[in-house]
């Protein structure tokens, strides 16, 4: 594949992530509709979609397996294989799953709207993190340590 077409595909995926970010943003306005179960499910699905984009960009087929009952966690595990820096969003994924359980387990709870608001922020963080890594793929094995750049350098 030429560099130009590879860049075009990457740009398209980033655009897709931007669209997901906008969809997450739009959910803020649905908070008081009482559709908490639906919103939590949608946010979880969007989280999965974000990870699918990351995995597909690395030339892999996103897994359909689940881990601890969540496909999101299986996708994260797949996405961080030979990319330890991707573990920086491990807890973000787990928080997304936790909030999903919290909201769907007790949809009528008096804190549900607040929990949904936080779940939106957690989903947005995942999207922004992956989007940042897609834009600057050579950065990020623990804050600024650009392993791929380093590996391609001839230091002699």
């Amino acid at each position, binding site marked *: 594949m030429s560099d130009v077409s590879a860049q075009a595909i990457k740009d398209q995926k980033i655009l897709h992530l931007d669209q997901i970010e906008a969809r997450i943003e739009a959910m803020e306005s649905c908070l008081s509709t009482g559709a908490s179960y639906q919103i939590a499910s949608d946010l979880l699905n969007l989280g999965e979609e974000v990870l699918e984009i990351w995995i597909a960009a690395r030339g892999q087929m996103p897994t359909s397996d689940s881990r601890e009952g969540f496909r999101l966690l299986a996708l994260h595990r797949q996405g961080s294989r030979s990319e330890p820096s991707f573990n920086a969003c491990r807890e973000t994924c787990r928080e997304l799953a936790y909030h999903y359980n919290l909201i769907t387990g007790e949809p009528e709870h008096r804190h549900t709207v607040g929990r949904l608001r936080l779940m939106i922020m957690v989903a947005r963080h995942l999207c922004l993190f992956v989007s*940042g890594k897609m834009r*600057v793929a050579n950065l990020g094995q623990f804050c600024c340590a650009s392993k791929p750049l380093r590996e391609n350098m001839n230091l002699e």
Partner: protein
Amino acid sequence: MVDVTDKIMKYRDVAYYSGCALEGSANGYDVSTRAVAKSLGLRIKDVTDWNCCGAMEVKNIDPGLQTYLSSRVLSNAVNIDGANVVMAPCNGCYHNLKKAEYDLSNDPKAKETVNRLSEKAGHQAYHAGQAETIHALDWIKGAIGEEELRERTKGRLAGLKVANYYGCMYVRPRHIFPEKDKGPGSESTSRPHFMDDLLAAAGAENVDFPLKTACCGGAHTLSDSDTSTKLVLNILQAAEASGADVIATECPTCHSGLEMHQVRAEKRFGKKTRITMLYFTQLLGLALGIGPRRLGIHTNISDSTDLIIDKRLT
């Protein structure tokens, strides 16, 4: 099993590796760490002739050299200062010293590089196991503990809601922190709690904050500033939505990132957030009755004056 009494004695007298950030942008962290040490009767002695830990610039180019640079700090602490515990408040320094320790224990090539460069530089090489590297959180938790802290602070942080933000380098990667995830009493790499424990002992109420180890966007600050700003804005908004009055930090990179991108978020995206940031040592200092100026709070970009007055923290 760790003998608690041994740990208390061991951590009461440590070598202090402040690192470069605490000499500059995070001066308030340095000043408050020293003030808290004095107030608690803990002895900290600066590592003689310390150097950069190699983060992050050196590590990008040559990780072997980074291991050597960190090992030289440890060598000076052990061989010049006679220390067996090195305390680093900066997550970057802490991470790199721990990584050097791990590399020297597990990678013969790293050992060979450190030995060769140490000989060339004319000092004794550091050998794995000669010193224990700890974070400022481990230090206060180990040397003082919650019970004593509770007695000394007399609940002065009561009424203050805190979102504890640890950042990513304090707990990752898990394998360089063999002492963590060892059950009750040890730190957790998935849900760190040492800062929560200490501030709760001082009377603060820790809010349930879902982004406590999430990325602050530090890696993208220069290459993709907008993503960094959005990541920080999201952290700030999540802390506010969690009901926090203040974000407690323990990493100078995260702290300055939060402060600077808070300003940028308003300028670039018109999104204003009111939450302020304080180093956990500044909060503990206030709880110990130390004045804000002596804790370097006025040197932070984030203005906590109103918070300190409103919550009667001085």
